[in-house]
């Protein structure tokens, strides 16, 4: 029994990290159609933010979350205004431009903070472990799971219940017609990009106590995030939630019965097969074309 529970918890923890990392990407890609290859670098910057605030000012990760969200969102806002804005409807150029931005951010971090691996201290109240139905799990991992679900709920509510969300959905369906109804799509895009970047930064800060912090860390996360978004179906937040749950549980289970190397390979093979037969992803929204 405790094996089943702890395996489910492991899968949920993997899922929550995937969800955190993929959420920002899903919003940006879903709304603006920009394939943001610098997404991993936003995650990395968030982790470095947590490290910086901790070593310079002694801030706890939890205390620094809001500041990091604002800082990375601001960065996203600036990048959108200076670079991305000029590249809408030019998907190949955005891929190249965001990739270039990612490389630059990586090297800037390497030059300023150094190439050493860093770590972030676990918040003292959450450094222990808790018992759930006979299984033990890290308190911090459960906390991350809670935050991921909370952020998802928040994002989904904005999307679903606010006027801004209504505008976003309108733009997603047809930008030209939405604009002709007086929706300022440029502004909406910028806000979306900033929000997505901020969430990526938040994800980086949240995972930093569990992982090592280094300038290259973003590269693996951007791959994971794309896997989640593509499998879930672009433009579908619920799809992102579902696919991160499926991917997390599947890779946790496979890794338990074989090992992480094989789990990773099998998951990728499964995704390739699914995409072959369902190119729109598992949860494609029905859009009237």
């Amino acid at each position: 029994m405790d094996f089943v529970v702890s395996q489910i918890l492991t899968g949920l923890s993997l899922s929550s990290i995937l969800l955190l990392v993929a959420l920002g990407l899903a919003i940006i890609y879903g709304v603006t159609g920009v394939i943001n290859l610098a997404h991993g670098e936003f995650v990395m910057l968030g982790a470095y933010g947590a490290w910086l605030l901790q070593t310079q000012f002694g801030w706890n990760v939890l205390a620094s979350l809001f500041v990091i969200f604002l800082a990375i969102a601001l960065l996203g806002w600036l990048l959108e205004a200076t670079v991305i804005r000029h590249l809408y409807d030019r998907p190949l150029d955005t891929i190249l431009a965001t990739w270039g931005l990612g490389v630059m951010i990586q090297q800037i971090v390497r030059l300023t903070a150094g190439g050493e691996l860093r770590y972030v201290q676990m918040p003292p109240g959450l450094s222990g472990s808790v018992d759930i139905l006979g299984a033990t799990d890290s308190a911090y991992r459960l906390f991350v799971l809670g935050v991921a679900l909370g952020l998802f709920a928040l994002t989904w509510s904005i999307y679903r219940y606010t006027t801004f969300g209504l505008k976003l959905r309108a733009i997603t369906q047809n930008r030209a017609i939405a604009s002709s109804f007086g929706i300022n799509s440029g502004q909406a895009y910028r806000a979306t990009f900033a929000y997505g970047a901020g969430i990526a930064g938040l994800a980086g800060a949240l995972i930093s106590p569990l992982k090592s912090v280094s300038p290259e860390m973003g590269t693996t996360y951007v791959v994971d995030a794309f896997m989640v978004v593509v499998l879930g179906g672009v433009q579908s937040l619920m799809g992102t939630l579902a696919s991160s749950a499926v991917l997390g549980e599947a890779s946790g289970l496979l890794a338990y019965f074989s090992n992480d190397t094989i789990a990773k390979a099998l998951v990728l093979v499964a995704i390739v097969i699914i995409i072959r037969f369902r190119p729109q992803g598992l949860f494609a929204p029905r859009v009237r074309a």
Partner: protein
Amino acid sequence: MNRNRRNFLKVGAAAGALTLTGFPHIWSRNASLAYAADGEIKVGVLFSLTGTTAIIEESLNKATLMAIEEINAAGGINGMKITPVIEDPASDPATFAEKARKLVLSDRCVSVFGSYTSASRKAVLPVFEKQDNLFWYPTLYEGRECSKNVIYTGAVPNQQQDDFIPWLVEKFGKRWYLIGSNYIYPKEENNYCKKLLEKLGAEVIAEEYVPLGHSEFSSVINKFRSEKPSVIFSTVVGDSVVALHRQYRAAGLDPATMPMASLTTSENEVAAMGGDAAAGHFTSAPYFMVFDSPENQKFVEAYRSRWGGDKVTHFVSESSYFQVHLFKQAVAKLAASDISPVTIREAVKGEQYKAPQGLVKVEPENLHCWLRPKIGQCKADGQFEILTQSADWLEPNPYSAYPNQKCTAEGLKEI
């Protein structure tokens, strides 16, 4: 036209004659004179200063340069200065090979000190074997290599494991979980570990490899929980080792009952993961920064005053340091005109040096070093506590997991 051509031929012949008489070493087979010219001996220093492994290789570069400066400040070698030619191979094996070729062929270095990963060593090996030059490799590695052109000053599997594995079995028990990164080094170390465990009647309950750079260990930790191994033998490297330790701690596992035993976690890795995550786990190595010897005290003090008071020394930077001194001792035995990679190799055989870890010696047969392994337990302040050390120095046996093969001065022998 004709005149010009005749002139040209005349000048050419004169120049040829001049070269033959004036610069005999270019033509004669005995080219040794070039290796120690104008009172200086050129050596190559080949550690990555940029790229992924730059973090660790930079410290090796610093230890090497410090040793060279020390020797020069004390009068050099028989009055000759060592001149380091520093190249940055940027953590890329192909660049390693290219820079090695440059150091050996165009700079005419008599030896090259360098490299950290096995991949980069394998990349430069053909250069040194073809040119019959000498490469000094400071890193612990998986063994199974027998080259006449490399002096290996780091530990091979038998030196780190012979004392360590029985000690752990006796102290913690016989259920072993082997976890490593998925490449050659962990697999070779585990090959030898499994042999030792079999002899001790211990059981390997799992042998598992994670991808290089892997950072999500929750499934692995779940398995630790359900299998309850008595020892986790970890050959996980790089940023994965940081993630493994931090997640192990977050999961609330206890090093007192289920310790991780490592061959690669040095002061350097501990600094990257934080002492709290490393505390309680064990490492076997010939050198720890806290080792109490006059030579080590001098080494640590010199290193910190040269490169910064917050810097740590570790078991690879220590061997980077002492191998330059071994080089010096070997060269000092030679007349200036005899200095060449081959004569240095012959001279360094059996050479001893009082290193920070204790007295070390170059084994004449396989050019690896006799070292003094120690077992350390990490403490929360990021330093190790040395619990035991081997009674005597330990012979290097690069083929310890392959009893029918032996590395000799004539090359690899099948027994």
